């Protein structure tokens, strides 16, 4: 530690350069963390589905529905303990671009299967009692500034768009981690009544045992194979994963940009270190004359570089965490549950250290290899 002061003085020798380089690294790491968080959020969305629940949908596509009559048969399939259903409503509140997921669900069966939503018992009862009641996630309540008991009007992108659908918010749910807090649930019966004709968009099955998934899927899909409404049954996780894949190869794009960010900032940091190395050539020669070893000088330069990148990295990484969490950023609705994970922060800091080591390498090597006599002669 006795060299701490020397490193500090060297850092402060050109304050402006040190500060600018630190901010550059901070900006780069901020970006890196943001990009990586997009990927982790999408990966997490793939895994959010349960392995012990299965989704039965129309084999052609999830946009087609299934007959209500399927319910009774599905409850008799061996291995299936419970069945419920839902339908995609695609509700819109004022601005179509302000997207949020909305579902008409079989409210009686839904709570038995979905434990992910925590609702106060009195609110739950109020929601169940009233046909026009809605249950809304905490995040969505906040986004639109809704209050419990408020009546709001939605329109649907799917059902007659001129029709206005009044709902009364009777329950607010808090999700367990990883589950969206921006969903909107209401009674399937209300959907049926208002639209005059609808069918379940999909059925959700709860399995007695996750290992039965393959058998149950085959049983159901074979049973309905030649029906007008053929089915496709898969675990909820596989279903979710399929939905996430629809974004296209976002992961590759984010990684490619992340690599570009890394090299861009490496160039900036390495350049700064090389410039400061060049300016200090004569000092290094003096230190060597005083008996500093090559190895020590090499280490001091690398540490100096690492301090800049680690401080910059910490600013960027924690800046990202604070900023994204403070603003509740959700990627305009495309990235529900967006967060900077601790593992992402750790990777960010590891990258910052790596940046410091690499950017300090060339000037450190030059300092260590500096021919003393030659340099001092030039100075004199």
């Amino acid at each position, binding site marked *: 530690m006795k060299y701490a002061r020397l490193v500090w003085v060297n850092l402060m020798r050109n304050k402006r350069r040190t500060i600018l380089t630190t901010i*550059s690294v901070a900006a780069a790491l901020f970006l890196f963390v943001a990009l990586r968080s997009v990927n982790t959020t999408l990966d997490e969305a793939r895994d959010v589905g349960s392995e012990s629940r299965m989704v039965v949908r129309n084999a052609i596509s999830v946009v087609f529905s299934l007959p209500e009559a399927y319910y009774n048969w599905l409850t008799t399939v061996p291995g299936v303990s419970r069945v419920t259903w839902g339908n995609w409503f695609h509700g819109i509140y004022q601005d179509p671009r302000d997207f949020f997921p909305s579902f008409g669900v079989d409210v009686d069966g839904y709570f038995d299967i979905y434990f992910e939503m925590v609702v106060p018992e009195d609110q739950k009862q109020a929601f169940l009692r009233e046909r026009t009641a809605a249950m809304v996630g905490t995040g969505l309540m906040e986004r639109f500034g809704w209050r419990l008991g408020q009546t709001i009007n939605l329109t649907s992108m799917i059902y007659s768009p001129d029709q206005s659908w009044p709902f009364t918010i009777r329950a607010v749910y808090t999700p367990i981690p990883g589950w969206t807090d921006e969903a909107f649930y209401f009674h399937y019966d209300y959907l049926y009544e208002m639209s005059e004709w609808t069918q379940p968009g999909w059925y959700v099955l709860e399995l007695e045992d996750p290992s039965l998934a393959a058998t149950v899927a085959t049983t159901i899909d074979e049973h309905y194979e030649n029906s007008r409404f053929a089915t496709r049954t898969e675990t909820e996780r596989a279903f979710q994963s399929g939905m996430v894949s629809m974004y296209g190869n976002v992961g590759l794009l984010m990684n490619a940009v992340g690599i570009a960010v890394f090299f861009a900032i490496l160039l900036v940091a390495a*350049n700064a270190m090389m410039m400061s190395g060049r300016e200090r050539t004569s000092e290094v020669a003096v230190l060597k004359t005083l008996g500093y070893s090559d190895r020590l000088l090499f280490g001091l330069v690398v540490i100096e570089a690492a301090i800049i990148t680690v401080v910059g990295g910490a600013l960027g990484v924690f800046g990202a965490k604070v900023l994204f969490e403070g603003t509740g950023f959700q990627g305009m609705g495309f990235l529900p549950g967006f967060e900077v994970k601790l593992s992402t922060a750790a990777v960010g800091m590891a990258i910052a250290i790596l940046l410091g080591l690499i950017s300090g390498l060339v000037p450190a090597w030059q300092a260590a290899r500096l021919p003393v006599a030659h340099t001092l002669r030039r100075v004199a």
Partner: protein
Amino acid sequence: MKIPLIYNIRSVRQRPVSTLFTALGMALVVLVFIAMMALSRGFRAAIVETGSRENVLVVRSGSDNELTSGLGRATAQTIAGMPFVAEGSTGRPLISPEVYVLVSLDRLDGGDALVVARGVSPQAFEVRKNVEIIAGRMINSGAPEILIGKSIVGRFAGTEIGETIRFASRDWEVVGHFAAGGSAFESEIWGENEQFMPAFRGEVFQSVTFRMSDPSAFEAVKLALEEDPRLPVGAHREYDFYASQSELLTRVISIAAVFIAGIMAIGAVFGAVNTMYAAVSARAPEIAVLLTLGFRPLSVLSSFLFEALVIALIGGVLGCLFSLPLNGLMTSTTNWSSMSEVAFAFSVTPDLLLRGMIFAAVMGLIGGFFPARRAARQPVVKAARQA
């Protein structure tokens, strides 16, 4: 009096490593900017090119996409008989009532995706001028035959000519491949509407597209259709209809491009600031000489700004060069308006390259300004003493 530009160019060459590092940093920023904008442009082009300005697309009143629309046979026939529908070479109206559904196809690289299956009328190939068969033959009326758009050939199972694809409980034989000028049609499967209709949703079409006999009369056509009490429809210029579908994603990618490139630019600009300050302080004696010789501080300022600009433009050119191989690279995403997969190519256009260069120049000027100002304000005596 101006300082000769060659002075700066030689100075830049004096410090090749520093210059190169700074320029490369900017090149990467420009590359990322161009790449993301090329992605957004490519997607937009694929969707927008789908529609023609001469065609009208009719959907159910209030629908903004084909998926949730539904029009009865009577509606299609009424529209076909209207006077503003152009006539084809055979004297039949150029109109295509279409069945639009999504089918799930297996990707060759694993997983599946939703693809649009469009049932069209025999006139569709005359209504859509950009569609042409590039391999195989046209479908025969009455047969369970399909054509495959060229962007999905080779990406999904069963898309080669002679193979069959099973959907809607029937086997469909692939008899040809078609191109459609790079548009989203190339990500679709086309068959005959009368064959698709009973296999999917019963007696409804999702949309009706026709050629106008007078494309400039769109407003009148729209009014005539929407005001007709027999027709529960909304009429859109086909081009605008598809263009609006690309808006959301294009906007998201553009915002992401500006956000990412903007933050990267902070790093690159500061890198340039460092480099230019180092250049200014290393050349303090030279600057003193210039000022002593009678060059105005403003000349010194613009001279150093020019130097920063040279570095930035080297970066800009490198960034543009790096981005060129991306042009034409195919990728795919989901068109959220239709919930179907659409393939498209990165589109690196000359105007994007120009924007990249402007971006680099702005970075250079911002990065060079403060160091250049310091050079210009340098007290001559102090600087000269250093020499």
